[in-house]
């Protein structure tokens, strides 16, 4: 990428493995599974009854404001608070007009909206509060973060289904590279809802057991919820203020499959184009890539298509490097998947620890990659990709590099 360089100076996370970055990362490294029985609504009528829910909501506000916040707002704000603290920024000393907020989102506060729909159907319009329907649009969390920390730079919310928050990283980096901002709070948050569970069930895309990416026995995904927030900063100013730089954002590719609304393009051609676009943007060759944090949804269609895409784009290198899916532990966090996986990718680049793909027992010849089965691994990772392939053919791949 040309223009100014972008580095990562802060991280925050809330996931089914824990309410902060440390517990989430420790869980990933230990290969712990965050998947369990659904508690947020009555799932008895569904074929599948598992999800990777956030167990305890962080405390982020009280009183009237707390009542107005959706579940997504709460975890998004908590992860942003942690990421900003992690960055060491003293916001009072910064120009708020130079700090942007770009998140990915989609499901957002839909659970609140669903409860409203149900009240509406059961009790009629006079007995329920229609404004709960407005918790659904995902730009709420973006506006809330800007409001809470008084950030006045460019603001946007990307919604490209399961690649939303990966794409948001690209927009955020572009704002810095082109000089529209010096710092951008980016990533995303998304939570569980009946619609997403019901929708993927209707598509027969949910595994009744915890998902098993790249395994021959895989039957589909498990839905999760998470917030992953990254503080992107222009490199020179980060250095000047003595910030701890966790990684470099090298570039990204964003493309359209042009194939199908819900099915990935099976030959891997479309996915390979996105990976190639990311490499081009980052100025990398296939040989430079040391690790891929895969989309790895565990659907019968995604995993072979992604394997084919990696082989097409990286050639022989695809077989020699670790490729893991942390969805085996966190579930598919939908519009926040790209963000939480980017957080993990940054930590991999920083610590040289690759989180595993758990629940892996039977290799699938169509997914013949080194999927880091069941146990994390220490290996040198200078450059890592994180891929997101979404509904509607919305594909995004981001590249991070170690900071030296």
């Amino acid at each position: 990428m040309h223009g100014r360089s972008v580095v990562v100076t802060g991280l925050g996370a809330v996931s089914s493995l824990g309410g902060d970055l440390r517990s989430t990362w420790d869980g990933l490294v230990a290969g712990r599974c965050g998947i369990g029985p659904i508690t947020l609504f009555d799932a008895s009528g569904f074929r599948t009854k598992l999800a990777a829910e956030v167990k305890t909501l962080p405390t982020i506000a009280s009183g009237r404001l707390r009542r107005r916040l959706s579940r997504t707002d709460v975890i998004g704000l908590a992860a942003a608070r942690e990421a900003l603290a992690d960055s060491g920024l003293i916001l009072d000393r910064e120009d708020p007009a130079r700090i942007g907020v770009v998140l990915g989102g989609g499901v957002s506060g839909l659970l609140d909206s669903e409860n409203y729909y149900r009240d509406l159907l059961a009790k009629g319009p006079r007995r329920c509060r229609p404004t709960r329907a407005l918790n659904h649009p995902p730009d709420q969390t973006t506006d809330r973060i800007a409001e809470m920390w008084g950030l006045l730079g460019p603001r946007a919310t990307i919604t490209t289904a399961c690649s939303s928050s990966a794409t948001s990283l690209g927009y955020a980096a572009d704002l810095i590279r082109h000089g529209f901002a010096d710092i951008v709070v980016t990533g995303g948050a998304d939570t569980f809802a009946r619609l997403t569970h019901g929708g993927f069930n209707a598509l027969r895309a949910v595994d009744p057991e915890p998902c098993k990416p790249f395994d021959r026995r895989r039957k589909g995904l498990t839905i999760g919820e998470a917030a992953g927030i990254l503080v992107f900063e222009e490199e020179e100013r980060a250095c000047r203020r003595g910030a701890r730089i966790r990684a470099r954002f090298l570039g990204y590719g964003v493309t359209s499959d042009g194939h199908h609304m819900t099915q990935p393009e099976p030959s891997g051609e479309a996915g390979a184009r996105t990976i190639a676009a990311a490499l081009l943007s980052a100025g990398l060759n296939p040989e430079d890539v040391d690790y891929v944090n895969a989309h790895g949804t565990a659907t019968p269609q995604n995993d072979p298509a992604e394997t084919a895409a990696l082989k097409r784009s990286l050639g022989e290198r695809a077989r020699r490097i670790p490729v893991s899916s942390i969805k085996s532990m966190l579930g598919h966090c939908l519009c926040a998947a790209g963000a939480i996986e980017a957080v993990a990718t940054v930590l991999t680049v920083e610590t040289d620890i690759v989180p595993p793909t758990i629940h892996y027992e039977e290799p699938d010849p169509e997914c013949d990659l080194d999927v880091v089965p069941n146990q994390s691994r220490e290996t040198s990772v200078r450059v890592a990709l994180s891929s997101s392939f979404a509904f509607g053919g919305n594909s995004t791949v981001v590249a991070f590099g170690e900071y030296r």
Partner: protein
Amino acid sequence: MTSLPRLVITGSGAVTALGRDLASTALGLAEGRSAVAPVYPDGQAPRGASPAARIASFTTEPELPRAKARRLDRGSLFAVVAARQCLADAGWEMAGREERTGILLGTGSAGAGPLTEFERQMAVESPESASPFLFPYTVANAPASVVALELVIKGPNVTVIQKDPAAFNALFYGRMMLADGRADALLVGAADEWSLTYHQAYEHLRVTRSEGREGFVLGEGAGVVLVEPEESARARGARTDVRLAGLATRPAPCSPHERRAAPDELAETIRAALEEAGASPREVGLVHLSRNGFPLVDEAEEEALRLVFGERSPRTAAVKLLIGENPFAGATQLALAAAALRSGDGLRAILVNAFGAGGNFFSAFLSRQ
């Protein structure tokens, strides 16, 4: 700031409640026709009921065969029709350019219809009975993705949600993409469908127009423009006379649904767009207002114009009062502005404002060269 390439708008398309293309929409506006009509049947309107600008009867043909249209959500239908019109207007041949063409749409309500129906099926019938064919269209990125599938677009495909100015936000992102060579041309705009659920929510918030209450009116439709770097547009023989010369955002901290604006904040947004274009206020021949009937922001915009232009304010157009509010309306204003500049009726420059809820403010400056 890194230098952005000179960008031109080479095509426009729109579907609104005033017409199924840009020309009929422009004609309806010129005649002062309003598409705003009651939502509830006679005698059944609740207290505080608001009207809306809905598209009553709509055929997708010739742009999209009826058989295909049946399975798509309304936002996607409007987007496909507007996008095809836009590409025809621009003379953009897709064959051989699929990977170099992208789409960035804004939206505020796409997917609301299928989502509500899916929820109804799950709640009323059974959790497992909801239609798998409905689910893909419950996502807000459906319109952009359906356009990408129908038109075989393989470049960037992004949907932005950020209140009323979502199309401007998409444009903001898109011009960086063009600067970075991620595509040769981008369809940029917005698509929305009217939703009774959102309508009732806004009625409850008392922000929409009603008897004895000022406020905005929700609308639906799509507006799209084709944006290209001037150099490559010229190389393919396209008309390059309409330039996107300035685009600025100056957000204010504000609760997500709060609609408030200070005149100096809005004036700063307008000045930033003019400054980027290297233009003086005197050059502006027309302002497409953000004005949508919500008094607090409308009055702030009026005062902001006074601050920027003094007492000699340029001509203004308040399109949203006639076609309704939602991100598609801002996109339609961009399309109308580009078409007006191309028509050569003496206008040299148009300012388009989009001052939305949650402190999301944008201004764009389009000029004829």
